[in-house]
C-alpha cells in the first residue's frame, strides 16, 4: 500500500494547519474517468469495440458548456504546475489523486464515483450500455482499486435494462471494495418508479449504496434539466440542481422504496445540501394532509430521509455568516445526513480544510467520517495493514 503521512504543504488558500490524523476522513465523491475510448477496448466485447472504433462511444451529452478540460482543476492539468505523471492529465490520474489528495489529507477511504458512464442510462441500446458499464467497471478495478486500498468503488450501472443492471451487480457486488452503484440525476424517470426496483433489490441484497450523482440532465433520453424545460446556460442548470435531487428523494419515499427495501441507503452527490432541510419540512407537511394517496408511506417522510438518505457536502454552500451556516446544518440534521465529498479533481471541488467553519468535534466526526462509514459499512479506520 502506498501511503504517506499527511505532512505536505498543499495549495488550499488559507490552509495553514496540519491535517487531523486522529479523526477518520472519508471522501464520498472522487472521479475517475477514462481519457480516451481506447481505455475500454480490453474490456469490451468485440462487437461493441468495433462499434466504438467506427463511431465513437455515442454517450449522449446535454451540450451545455461547463469549463474546459472536463471541468478539471487546471492546477492538476497538463502544462500547469502540479502535473507530474501524465501530459494528458485532466486530473483524473491515480498518481495525482494519491499525491495531491489522498496522502495530503490522510484520506481513509475515497469513493470512486466514475463519471464516464453516467450517460449509459440514456444510451438507446441497453445491451451496449450495459457492456460499456461492465468495461468501465473492469477498467476501474484494474487501474484504480488494485493500486490503492483506500479506494472503494461505486459501480457504473445503466438502468436501460434493469435485468442487465442486476446481472452486473451480481457479477461485482460481492467484491468488498465495491460499496455502491452510481447513477445520474438525469434519467428517464424518477428513481422511485417500480421500473428500477429490481436494481434496488439487488443493491440491498449486496449491501450496496444507491448513489445518485449530478449529471445527464437534459441529455439523450433524460428529462430536461429543470421542471420548466431547458435553460440556456450551464450556470442555470447548476443553480437549479436541487430540484432534481428533491424529485428523486420524493419519488423514492412516495413509492415506498424504503418500505420495500428497508436496508437500502441512498447517497446524493454534488447537488449541494441545504435543500434537505426545507424538503423534509415540506414533505412532512404534505404527508400529514395527503398521506391517504400513499398509505404505504407509514412514517413521516423526514424519518426516511434521516434513516436512508445521505447527501454529499460538495458544493458546500456558504451562508452569510457562520451562525446561519450552523443553523442550516442543524435544520438538515447534518449529524446524520451530511457526508464529506470533495468532487476531486474538478474546479468546484471542496477541500477538507477550508470548506466548513470549525465544527464541534462530534459533528466534525459525523460529517467527515462516521456518517459515511456507517452508510458503506466500513471499518473504523482504514489501516490497510499498516499505520498511516
Amino acid at each position: 500500500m502506498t501511503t504517506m503521512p499527511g505532512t505536505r504543504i498543499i495549495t488550499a488558500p488559507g490552509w495553514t494547519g496540519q491535517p487531523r490524523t486522529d479523526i477518520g476522513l472519508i471522501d464520498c465523491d472522487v472521479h475517475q474517468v477514462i481519457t480516451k475510448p481506447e481505455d475500454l477496448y480490453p474490456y469490451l466485447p468485440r462487437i461493441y469495440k468495433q462499434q466504438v472504433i467506427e463511431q465513437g462511444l455515442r454517450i449522449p451529452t446535454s451540450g451545455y458548456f461547463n469549463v474546459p478540460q472536463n471541468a478539471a482543476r487546471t492546477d492538476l492539468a497538463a502544462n500547469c504546475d502540479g502535473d507530474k505523471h501524465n501530459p494528458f492529465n485532466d486530473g483524473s490520474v491515480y498518481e495525482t489523486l494519491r499525491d495531491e489528495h489522498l496522502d495530503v489529507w490522510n484520506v481513509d477511504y475515497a469513493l470512486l464515483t466514475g463519471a464516464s458512464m453516467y450517460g449509459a442510462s440514456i444510451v438507446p441500446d441497453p445491451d451496449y450500455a450495459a457492456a460499456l458499464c461492465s468495461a468501465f467497471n473492469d477498467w476501474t478495478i484494474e487501474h484504480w482499486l488494485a493500486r490503492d486500498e483506500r479506494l472503494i468503488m461505486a459501480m457504473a450501472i445503466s438502468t436501460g435494462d434493469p435485468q442487465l443492471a442486476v446481472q452486473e451487480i451480481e457479477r461485482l457486488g460481492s467484491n468488498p471494495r465495491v460499496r455502491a452503484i452510481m447513477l445520474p440525476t438525469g434519467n428517464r424517470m424518477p428513481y422511485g418508479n417500480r421500473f428500477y426496483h429490481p436494481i434496488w433489490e439487488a443493491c440491498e441484497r449486496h449491501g450496496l449504496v444507491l448513489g445518485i450523482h449530478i449529471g445527464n440532465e437534459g441529455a439523450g433520453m433524460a428529462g430536461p434539466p429543470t421542471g420548466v424545460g431547458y435553460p440556456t446556460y450551464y450556470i442555470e442548470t447548476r443553480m437549479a440542481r436541487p430540484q432534481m435531487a428533491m424529485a428523486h428523494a420524493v419519488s423514492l419515499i412516495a413509492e415506498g422504496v424504503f418500505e420495500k427495501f428497508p436496508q437500502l441507503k441512498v447517497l446524493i452527490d454534488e447537488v449541494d445540501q441545504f435543500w434537505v432541510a426545507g424538503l423534509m419540512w415540506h414533505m412532512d407537511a404534505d404527508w400529514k394532509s395527503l398521506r391517504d394517496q400513499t398509505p404505504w408511506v407509514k412514517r413521516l417522510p423526514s424519518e426516511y430521509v434521516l434513516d436512508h438518505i445521505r447527501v454529499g457536502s460538495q458544493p458546500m454552500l456558504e451562508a452569510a455568516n457562520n451562525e446561519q451556516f450552523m443553523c442550516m446544518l442543524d435544520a438538515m440534521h447534518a449529524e446524520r445526513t451530511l457526508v464529506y465529498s470533495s468532487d476531486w479533481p474538478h474546479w468546484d471541488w471542496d477541500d477538507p480544510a477550508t470548506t466548513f467553519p470549525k465544527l464541534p468535534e462530534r459533528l466534525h466526526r459525523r460529517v467527515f467520517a462516521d456518517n459515511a462509514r456507517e452508510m458503506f459499512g466500513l471499518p473504523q479506520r482504514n489501516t490497510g495493514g499498516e499505520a498511516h
Partner: protein
Amino acid sequence: MPLNAENDLRRVVVGKASELGPGERKIVVPFRGRAGIGVFNVAGQYYALRNLCPHKLGPLCVGRVSGRPVAAAPPSSYQGVPEIALDDQVLRCPWHLWEFDLTTGQCLVDPQMRVKMYPVVIEDEQLVVYADPADLPVPPPAHTRAMQAQEVAEPDNAP
C-alpha cells in the same frame, strides 16, 4: 342552562337522538366567535368534539368524514390495493386535511395532538352534551333565550 357543578360543564340539549342517524352530524352553536361543538353519530355511538382544529384553529367538525386507507406494502409489491380502516370514523379538517379519530379525538398524523371531546348522553330521548362554556356562545339576554334555544337545535348546513 344549569352548569354542571362537578366539572364546570354546561348541559346542552342537541335534539332528539332519533333524528341524528348513523353517519350524520350536527354542529351546535358555531357562531359569535366561539368554536361550537360537533355531535357525530358513528355507527350508533354519539361523539361530541370541539369544532376547533388544534392544528390551525380551523372549523374541524365541518370536514369530510370517511375512513383511512392503509396498505401493508407499496403497490409494486403486488399485495393488493389499499384497504379502508376506521371507516366512517375519520374526520378531516377542511383546513389542511389533518385526520382525527372521531371516537377518541386523537389526531392520526400527529400523536401529540388531539381535539377536545365532551360527554354525550341520552336523557329522555334527547341528545345532551356537557360542554365547556368557553366553547358556547355568550348567554344572550333573557328575552332572546327562546330563539337561542331554537338556533342551538338547528341542523347545520355543512357538507
